[in-house]
């Protein structure tokens, strides 16, 4: 029952997002699509007559709104997100072409920051109020105060330019020829270090604080005392009793922070010219490529909402109490 109502809720959310995406270009003051109908519009979007025709056909501005909406929805279901003005290709194709790099970046960073965040958070809670806890707390508060793009640029300047140990641009060396697949993997990892480090550092705070708070709460619970009254060792109690309970809220919140991380790629990929979807969004903004921009918006938003949905589902499976309450 719980799962079904959740499913319905997320379905409504996706519907709302799709509708926002539909209405945005049509509802903007001064008609944001004026560049389509009027070649002399003040928004400087240069395109050929042929492209204009494709776009006009996609938006179908001459048809009634309800018909436009139906066409739009059917298009979405078929995977038609429109036509990119700048890349002169279907939006979905452009996005999927970049997807691999974003997945690599987000995947690696997520794995690292969750592990690190949980470990540091648990360490901090375990050492509550002592030097190690305070040191970690203040360092992580400080790092979290940096906007991710600023942190990225600082890392690029220090490790990429001054020390010159990591590349600061792209996902692979341009025009490289590799003698072995291993060499290629190394090159990719080498390029991944700084963007991933930036993402990890600027997002670790969320997981760290959650874990710390959650763990502090759990350590004060009566059942921890019960476990100790049984004569169990501190290590056993930490692993078997405290961690499982403390991790429950982390699961949900972590999937949400994956959402933040996906947003973070917009900045980090821009700083490091990493050829993923975030960088694509920056290009779309710079070139006023509205169809592409909207396509990416839809793609990112649904990915983030999807992550939240998965989090909810995992939580239901993990916590034996949820199904009964």
């Amino acid at each position, binding site marked *: 029952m719980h799962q079904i109502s959740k499913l319905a*809720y*997320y379905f409504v*959310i996706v519907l*709302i*997002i799709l509708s*926002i*995406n539909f209405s*945005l*270009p049509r509802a*903007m*003051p*001064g008609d*944001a699509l004026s560049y389509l109908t009027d070649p002399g519009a003040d928004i400087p979007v240069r395109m050929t007559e042929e492209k204009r025709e494709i776009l006009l056909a996609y938006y179908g501005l001459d048809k009634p709104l309800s018909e436009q909406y139906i066409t739009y929805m059917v298009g979405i279901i078929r995977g038609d997100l429109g036509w990119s003005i700048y890349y002169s290709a279907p939006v979905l194709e452009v996005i999927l072409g970049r997807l691999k790099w974003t997945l690599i970046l987000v995947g690696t960073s997520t794995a690292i920051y969750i592990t690190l965040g949980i470990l540091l958070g648990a360490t901090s809670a*375990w050492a509550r*109020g002592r030097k190690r806890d*305070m040191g970690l707390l203040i360092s992580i*508060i*400080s790092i*979290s*105060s*940096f*906007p*991710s*793009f*600023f942190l990225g*640029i*600082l890392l*690029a*300047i220090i490790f990429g*330019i001054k020390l010159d140990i990591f590349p*600061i641009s792209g996902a692979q060396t341009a025009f490289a020829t590799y003698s072995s697949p291993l060499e290629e993997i190394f090159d990719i990892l080498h390029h991944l270090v700084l963007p991933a480090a930036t993402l990890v550092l600027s997002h670790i705070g969320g997981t760290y604080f959650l874990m710390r708070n959650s763990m*502090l709460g759990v*350590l*004060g*619970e009566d059942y*921890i*005392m019960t476990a*100790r009254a049984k004569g169990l060792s*501190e290590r056993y*109690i*930490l692993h078997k009793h405290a961690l499982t309970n403390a991790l429950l809220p982390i699961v949900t919140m972590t999937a949400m922070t994956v*959402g933040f991380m996906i*947003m973070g790629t*917009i*900045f980090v990929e*821009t700083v490091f010219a990493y050829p993923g979807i975030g960088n694509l*969004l*920056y290009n779309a*903004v*710079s070139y*006023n490529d*509205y169809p592409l*921009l*909207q396509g*990416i*918006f839809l793609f*990112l*938003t649904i990915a*983030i*909402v999807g992550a939240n949905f998965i989090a909810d589902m995992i939580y239901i499976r993990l916590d034996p109490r949820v199904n009964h309450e």
Partner: protein
Amino acid sequence: MIEGRKILGSIGLGILTIFVIVAVFAPYIAPHDPHQMYRPMEHPSSSHLLGTNDIGNDILSEIVYGTRVSLFIAFVVSVISMLVGTSLGLVAGYFDKVGFLIMRVVDVVLTIPRLPLIIVIASFIRPSIWNLIALFLIFGWTMPARIIRSEVLTLRRRYYIDATKMIGGSDFYILWRHILPNVIPLVVVQFIMEAIHVILAESGLCFLGLGDPVAMSWGMVFHYAFECPIIYVSDVWMWWMLPPGLCIVFTVLGLTFVGYALEETFNPKLKNPFGGMER
């Protein structure tokens, strides 16, 4: 821990005070008119402490005036968000039916990812600080509304609110006299959280080129520096990019410290002598 709280709180307050003074007295503090054009790309000197940018504006003066813009946006958004969020939270917590409706809206708005939506809307509309403020406000009220509501629900369960009702206090009187004073600490903490969020989000939008090109905030100064092709290959970043970046960092840090100190003061974790692990 108690000591740490006081020290961090004072440091935070100190940092914020400095920035507020800079913002208020910008015309007296800035050495030059930020729109005045001098020789472009000058290195720091006694007449231009942080040099000049690509079109010859004095960078220090730009940053001093930028303090105004950055803090203004954060302040206005946070104040309005708190007013709207607190009122709706109070109403939603006190009247069940309206509350249910408000909370469904809050759920939906909170589930839709903020940043992508703000980016996509911002790129359709002409960027100006008022547009940015309006965009941030769409989301800003939701979190305080949710938190205030759940606090009101807890407060309502306390007996004295029913007692007041029995002696004939009106709903408004109860909300105003008994519930509001109890949620003020939460509102203050939420205000700070929102301010942090807006400072970071605004700078992010500026970085992507979606800021107001007329009202130069710290983020915009940073954006133009990042767009400059020679920023990495010379030392220009040290006076053009680092100072606005650090201003953002220190403001956020100051707000975080104050927020942390307030939270620890208002909501001290019950020191349970039976709890916690022995080592």
